[in-house]
């Protein structure tokens, strides 16, 4: 009898364990395969009319933030990003904002509201977002001086993380996986 009961336990307990494990994963989460790979090249038309080619930023650490005016976590992190830019500008770091799925006037109003001064442009066709596998916003990519993506962040960023990850990018340290913020991105 005990033998049978042990067999019953040996089948049922792992099954229940497996199902319980299901609570600790997000079935919709797909890890980004892009980390550690060269950043897809793009040319961004800036709101001030200029053109910015990513390739021209080789040798610098690039911070690319995808956002939209209707996105609440983007709103939550906007002043932090500008504050970080204010302390870092003039160094080897370039901040880039890529506005997606948005109306131009709303995007401009957003930039004015938060006094954003770093380069920003619209990805009108959505091509850049697709190349970077952007699924929700905000999503932020850190690119090292060799043009390689070292880190991807989904959701709101905080100042310490920005500094730490920019520093890692400068030292060409590739993160193992993407991170998530306290306010997740809006899909």
């Amino acid at each position, binding site marked *: 009898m005990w033998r049978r009961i042990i*067999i*019953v*336990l040996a089948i049922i307990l792992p099954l*229940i364990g497996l*199902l319980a494990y*299901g*609570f600790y*994963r997000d*079935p919709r*989460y797909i890890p980004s395969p892009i980390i550690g790979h060269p950043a897809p090249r793009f040319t961004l038309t800036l709101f001030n009319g200029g053109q910015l080619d990513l390739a021209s930023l080789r040798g610098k650490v690039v911070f690319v933030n995808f956002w939209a005016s209707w996105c609440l976590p983007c709103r939550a992190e906007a002043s932090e990003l500008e504050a970080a830019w204010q302390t870092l500008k003039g160094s080897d770091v370039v901040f880039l904002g890529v506005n997606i799925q948005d109306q131009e006037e709303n995007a401009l109003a957003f930039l004015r509201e938060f006094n954003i001064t770093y380069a920003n442009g619209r990805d009108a066709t959505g091509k850049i977002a697709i190349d970077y596998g952007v699924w929700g916003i905000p999503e932020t990519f850190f690119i090292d001086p060799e043009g390689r993506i070292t880190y991807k962040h989904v959701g709101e960023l905080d100042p310490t993380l920005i500094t730490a990850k920019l520093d890692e990018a400068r030292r060409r340290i590739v993160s193992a996986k993407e991170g998530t913020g306290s306010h997740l991105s809006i899909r």
Partner: protein
Amino acid sequence: MTAALGHVSIILALLLALWGIIAPILGSRMRREGFFVSARVAILGQFLLVTLASSSLIYALVSTDFSIRYVVFNTTRSTPIYYRVTGLWGALEGSLLLWEWILIIFSGLVAWTYKNRHQELMPWVLMILSTVSAFFLAVLALVSNPFEGVFPIPADGRGLNALLEDANMITHPPLLYTGFVGLTVPYAFAMAALIKGKLDDGWIVTTRRWTIIAWFFLTMGNLVGAWWSYHVLGWGGYWAWDPVENAAFMPWLPATAFLHSIQVQERRHMLKVWNLSLIIIAFSLTIFGTFLTRSGILSSIHAFSNGPVGSVFLAFLAFVLLGSFGLLAYRADHLKGQSELDSVVSRESAFLLNNVVLVSALFTIFLGTIFPLIAEAITGAKVSVGAPYFNSVTVPLFLLLVFLMGVGPMIAWRKASWDNLKRNFLWPALASLVIALALFIWRVRDFFPLLGFTLSVFVTATILFDTALAVRARHRLAGEGVLAALRTLARRNQRRYGGLVVHLGIVLIVLGIGGSMSYSIERQATLSVGESLSVGHYRIRFEGLRGTQQPTHYRVEGAFRIFNNGDESGIFFPALKFFPNQQSPVGRAVFRSTYADDLYLILSGFSELGQNQATLKVLIRPLVTWIWLGGAIIALGTMVAIWPAKNSRQNAESSEQANYRLPTES
């Protein structure tokens, strides 16, 4: 007020359910009959209280009592009255209440029907029913309370999901729940027999009819779900192997296996442990299904809420599995079968094989459903398992099952003689070979469809041939005409002929699935006004676009004129509906069903209204109608099988004897 009444009823019912669990234990310890009687009273009391609670929620929904959160989220002031009532199963809390309500109705029926029978088992049957009921009541009282209030009270509600405002949504969930809940009854009898150690075959005869009823509702629930998916969702399919669909289908497999293998136990006293396991698995799968849909652990197109209720269901599932199989392991020594298999060529072995196939199908579907979990737990990789896997592994299994469906009912018990085989299968086999050849010449040359059609013919032929022999025998014996003979046969042996009719229904479903899986045509094109698209024997001409404001949404319709083999056969208006609070439009597909094929039109996009261009998706799906027709035949067969006889007990016995007299028994 309504909310308080409902909530208090649930709490009182929970207390009664707990008493219903304790009373039989006390009764058997103290040997006092009064405790057993109180267990029955506890069930009837729960029935009254849960009915009161459900009525309160329905009343709140109908009277749009927006002080209750559930009402706010599932109805509006403009919702028609029938959709207010169906709001009862529009979301989690209400569906759990509906589940509990059906459960306690079943339990009450059991308590009432067997008032004077199964004296030894009944207290334990009622205890198991109270245990399941206590679980659902506890969830309703503590975890997801349908009567939770909301403050401030909103002026209007948010309403049901637009897709759920459909007549089939009135029937699909209650049918499925009735099927799920119905399996609790045989489970309760099985557990009672195990607890009591009273392991003769009595419980099995009793539960057979309950299992047929549960099986019937499960079948209908799944078919109506498929029908809704096909006719309302507008993607042209009826089954997607989505985890939630699998969850609804999986209990059907062991339930079907059980319905066949209990005949072996009844007749030959074999397969006792197996039958108990099947019924435990079937019941556990109903809990598993609810766990799956409510926990959100697997990605599904069915948007169900996640929340704490998932972990509660998992805990209950663990309790059921460990308790039931633990008890089975403990009692297994008493469950030695009394006879052995006499021959491989016999009805026993056909049923055994049918069981093996059904359980294999269950295993493969279960594995495919939870495989994303296994893969991520072991390798960390993200995988998804889709229709190609499920189709390729289940199609051969189901075809084998169709073959067995032809063999099983006709082959003799114990050991089939060469004579028996020749008499029952020679002509049907020849007939199906001829049809197979004809189909081959008629260019049905793919292996699986050809095999499927041939086997369908084989099954139909065995059934018709066997019935014809029996009718001839009646004619010679009693001089009855064909119809009178059929009536006598069906009445003398309801279960057998009911079962055969159900088999014919399944054959139609197999034809429908086979035809639509293998020979569907799909074409998509962007058309300007006046342009046409030719698909199969249809030509579709685009006539123009029209936009109209409807009460709840804005609708864009395309007009398409259909030509069937060159003959004009009407204008179709597939549409896209734009609801103000939904991001993407809801499609309204239109279709034309004939016995040969369905023409299915989906408007997938359009240019600015002025430019008059439309993107149209056209599907031609052969034989789909036969699936729904098969469902109707199954319903008919079930009625034949369970129709109350004039003198039921006598009939049951005489039908048992009639079984032995059938011409199939040589």
